[in-house]
């Protein structure tokens, strides 16, 4: 039998089982006498053993076998769960995870897995806990008692993500073609054609929605590994942290979820490293020993909100101010930072107040990374912090990356798209006063002074007086994170739903644009990353 074709399936399913093991081991660590987590880990390990043996992956099988034996002893009350045991179990699961990747890739994981394997075998040889005499708390049977009601059954098939991406792209192209068709039909003006088109149009919309829905996955698929991550971070920092995960069943487009995982990890690590205090410091200030960290996901119409909140010391304004002065980010005369300034300073690329480089953060890769990524995804970030009470970072993200309503503008014959989420209004400069303030071009928008940005200059085109054909000057007032600016363009070209296509190289250098699209008439347009302009 050709086993190679089962390798990908083995890998996918092993990852799921490993995720289950981590979740259940965390539960076991919190409640060392609980029997259900032991049974659940046992089942996951057992399943993996069967699969890896079939695939002929010797190291995965050996590790799984030792893990299973150890868990079996725990189940039968021959071994009490303490920190040594849970640490060894975690280490074994890590080794298992690496061994899966190595063996699937065709390598040998034998040497690398030897320490974890040795640790398991040593534990397995340990004597039974001394007080196993009377009634043992571990009486769990391997089979969990039958659940009376029939379990909820959903019928599913597995589809490669590339397939779904392909479908999504096709549906996107279909939307674009529909736009072009609508334009043509409008010119012809035949009622029969219009009717047929409107029917086709509705079907295309429905098809698009169905495909979008098929790409939605619960955030738990990525977020379930965070409790383990926070636990490890807390251990290495000598802190106690309880992570609460809320809304793990909320669904998000798969590609959006992949993109947002890293920023969330960053925020959690920041909270663990900088936010939450050491247990003794917490007790001294009247807080519980263990820091509370919450990751809560909620859905509001087309937006998903992710809140990372800790009850730690809050962001130290004085230290931020001192560092900001030292780095010349604020004027030397500034005495204190307002909320808004604080957020602006800490989100500067490379800003960090960490005293030393730890394992976790303080590498000068600060919250700016989070901000940049979230903005590129069409979202927004809000930070609230109170000294001694904690910090709350809230991300607002669209449910999907794919379709964005955009304002189109023409500059020197080229089309550019500005996402409507960042368009505050459009104005004609002819009706507003222009001034020069501190050497910068600004306009007066009602009572507000708004800096002007010449789009021509930004994209490196020669100055054309920024005057359009009919002698007026068109300005898009863009807005992000509470900041505004007027973007001077040649001409507005209407609004359109655009299908965002990522292009390579966006993340290095060409920070002005977050992607590209093809407009209804087949003309390509670049999508402006508003956040990077403000």
């Amino acid at each position: 039998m050709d086993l190679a074709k089962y390798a990908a399936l083995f890998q996918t399913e092993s990852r799921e089982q490993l995720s289950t093991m981590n979740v259940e081991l965390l539960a076991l660590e919190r409640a060392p006498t609980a029997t259900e987590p032991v049974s659940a880990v046992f089942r996951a390990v057992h399943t993996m053993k069967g699969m890896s043996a079939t695939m002929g992956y010797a190291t995965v099988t050996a590790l799984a076998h030792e893990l299973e034996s150890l868990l079996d002893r725990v189940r039968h009350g021959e071994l009490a769960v303490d920190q040594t045991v849970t640490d060894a179990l975690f280490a074994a699961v890590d080794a298992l995870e690496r061994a899966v990747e190595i063996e699937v890739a065709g390598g040998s994981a034998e040497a690398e897995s030897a320490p974890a394997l040795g640790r398991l075998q040593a534990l397995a040889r340990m004597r039974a806990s001394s007080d196993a005499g009377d009634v043992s708390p571990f009486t769990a049977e391997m089979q969990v008692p039958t659940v009376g009601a029939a379990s909820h059954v959903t019928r599913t098939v597995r589809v490669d993500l590339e397939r779904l991406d392909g479908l999504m792209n096709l549906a996107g192209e279909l939307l674009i073609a529909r736009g072009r068709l609508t334009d043509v039909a409008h010119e012809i003006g035949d009622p029969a054609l219009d009717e047929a088109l409107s029917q086709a149009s509705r079907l295309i919309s429905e098809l698009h929605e169905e495909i979008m829905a098929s790409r939605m996955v619960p955030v738990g698929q990525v977020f379930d590994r965070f409790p383990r991550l926070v636990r490890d971070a807390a251990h290495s920092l000598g802190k106690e942290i309880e992570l609460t995960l809320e809304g793990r069943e909320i669904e998000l487009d798969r590609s959006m979820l992949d993109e947002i995982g890293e920023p969330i990890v960053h925020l959690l690590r920041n909270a663990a490293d900088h936010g939450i205090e050491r247990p003794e410091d917490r007790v001294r200030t009247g807080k519980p020993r263990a820091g509370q960290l919450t990751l809560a996901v909620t859905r509001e119409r087309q937006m998903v909100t992710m809140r990372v909140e800790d009850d730690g010391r809050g962001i130290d304004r004085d230290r931020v101010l001192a560092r900001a002065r030292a780095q010349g980010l604020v004027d030397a005369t500034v005495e204190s930072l307002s909320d808004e300034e604080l957020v602006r300073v800490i989100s500067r690329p490379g800003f960090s107040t960490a005293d030393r480089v730890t394992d976790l953060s303080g590498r000068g890769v600060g919250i700016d990374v989070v901000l940049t990524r979230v903005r590129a995804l069409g979202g927004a970030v809000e930070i609230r912090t109170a000294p001694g009470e904690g910090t709350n970072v809230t991300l607002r993200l669209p449910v999907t990356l794919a379709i964005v309503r955009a304002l189109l503008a023409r500059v020197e014959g080229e089309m550019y798209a500005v996402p409507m989420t960042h368009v505050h209004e459009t104005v004609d400069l002819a009706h507003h006063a222009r001034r020069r303030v501190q050497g910068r071009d600004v306009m007066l928008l009602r009572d507000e002074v708004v800096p002007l940005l010449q789009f021509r200059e930004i994209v490196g085109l020669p100055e054309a007086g920024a005057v359009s054909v009919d002698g007026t000057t068109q300005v898009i007032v863009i807005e992000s994170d509470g900041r505004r600016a007027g973007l001077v363009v040649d001409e507005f070209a209407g609004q359109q739903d655009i299908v965002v296509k990522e292009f390579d190289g966006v993340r290095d250098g060409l920070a002005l644009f977050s992607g590209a699209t093809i407009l209804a008439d087949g003309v390509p347009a670049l999508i402006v990353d508003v956040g990077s302009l403000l």
Partner: protein
Amino acid sequence: MSHTVLICDDAVFMRTMISDILAESGFEVVGQAETGVQAIERYKTLRPDLVTMDIVMPDMGGIDAVREITSFDANAKILMCSAMGQQALVVEAIQAGAKDFVVKPFQPSRVLEAVQRVLG
């Protein structure tokens, strides 16, 4: 007419592989189940000629499922699929009404032999 089969295993990987082995030999895989409870439900609706049953599954294990199925259909033909080191459980499964067993890792020829024995 080809024989119908219901495959019960909590791992998609295992279900896919067993399904491929049997389908290549002309069996008709009519259903799959990933827990013991599902196995019983599907058995009732599908009435397959043959069931392959994993021992360790969430919700309800394979042995309890065998007991339940044979309680309402004494002629059910169930083949246990066990991992190494589960001899005691295999014996229990046979006592519960399973007809035969194969041990993981599977070799297609072994699986087919066992299936032929069970179907008699």
